[in-house]
């Protein structure tokens, strides 16, 4: 089996990159908007990264835009599942093969305005996020 295709174990850590300019992380508090699906990019689910393939939180942040600053929220797959939030490996992305790429299919572009999605966003931000690391600034090219 190719790297990144295997199911995500309950004890796996997941990363979610958060632009510092959005203020979605301020005064030690993470906002639900950090987990809001984008109407074009998150058609099949909200993107997260598998720590075992990505490396450190810093490595995750460095995948952002040059010159921009990011925080990285850390979650555990099993915690999400306990609250009914699925997480699946999706290494095939429009940009190419990325073994670290995973998705939360229940939070997607199609249902981004539903009560359930808004509640799940809040659950992820306020209960399930283990910690937030950063800020990390991507060097300008």
């Amino acid at each position, binding site marked *: 089996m190719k790297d990144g295709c295997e199911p995500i174990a309950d004890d796996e850590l997941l990363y979610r990159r958060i*632009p510092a*300019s*959005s*203020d*979605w992380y*301020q005064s030690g508090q993470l*906002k639900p*908007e950090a987990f*809001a*699906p*984008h*109407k074009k*990019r*998150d058609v099949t689910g909200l*993107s997260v990264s598998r720590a075992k393939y990505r490396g450190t939180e810093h490595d995750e942040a460095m995948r*952002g*835009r040059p010159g*921009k600053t990011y925080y990285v929220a850390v979650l555990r797959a099993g915690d999400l599942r306990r609250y009914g939030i699925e997480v699946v490996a999706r290494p095939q992305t429009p940009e190419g093969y990325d073994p670290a790429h995973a998705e939360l299919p229940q939070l997607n572009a199609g249902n*981004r*305005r539903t*009560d359930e999605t*808004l*509640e799940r966003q*809040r*659950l992820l931000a*306020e*209960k399930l996020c283990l910690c937030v690391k950063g800020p990390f600034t991507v060097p300008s090219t």
Partner: protein
Amino acid sequence: MITVEARRFMSPAIQTPRQILGDMAVTALDAQRKERICQAWQDLIDQKLIEWGRCPDKLADEGVEAPSGETIHLAIQLAELMKARSLQPPTSVVPDPNGGIVFERRGVSIVEVIHIWEDGTIEYQLYRGTKLDKRVKLPLTTDYNDCIMRYACEGWMRAYCRR
């Protein structure tokens, strides 16, 4: 008989600020409080909303669209309205990833949100913990003053209604 006996030990009624300080002092305190609220709203408009409109590139990122001029204009209108009514300022204002703007006011056990979506829809949401307890769309066609007073009547808004 028992009731009469008990009354002897009851504390006197708690005095209101008006009784303690007198009407003039209360008016002064009220004016100060309103001024602080007004300033907080103005700072939000000047330092955040107008700034987003001037430099949308600062917000834009992969998967994050900066709010459009129309959405920012709507947010400023709303902020001006709430400022004029001396409503408590939000504890945070952030963009959503699709070009919307979210006003949030965090209480002890509730969180109130006014969400301006990217298409101009405005919603009031009330959360108890992570549960969405109330969600009301504020129609665009009606005057915002009426909508806010009519629909968003809990906590944040109720504080205004009581005055």
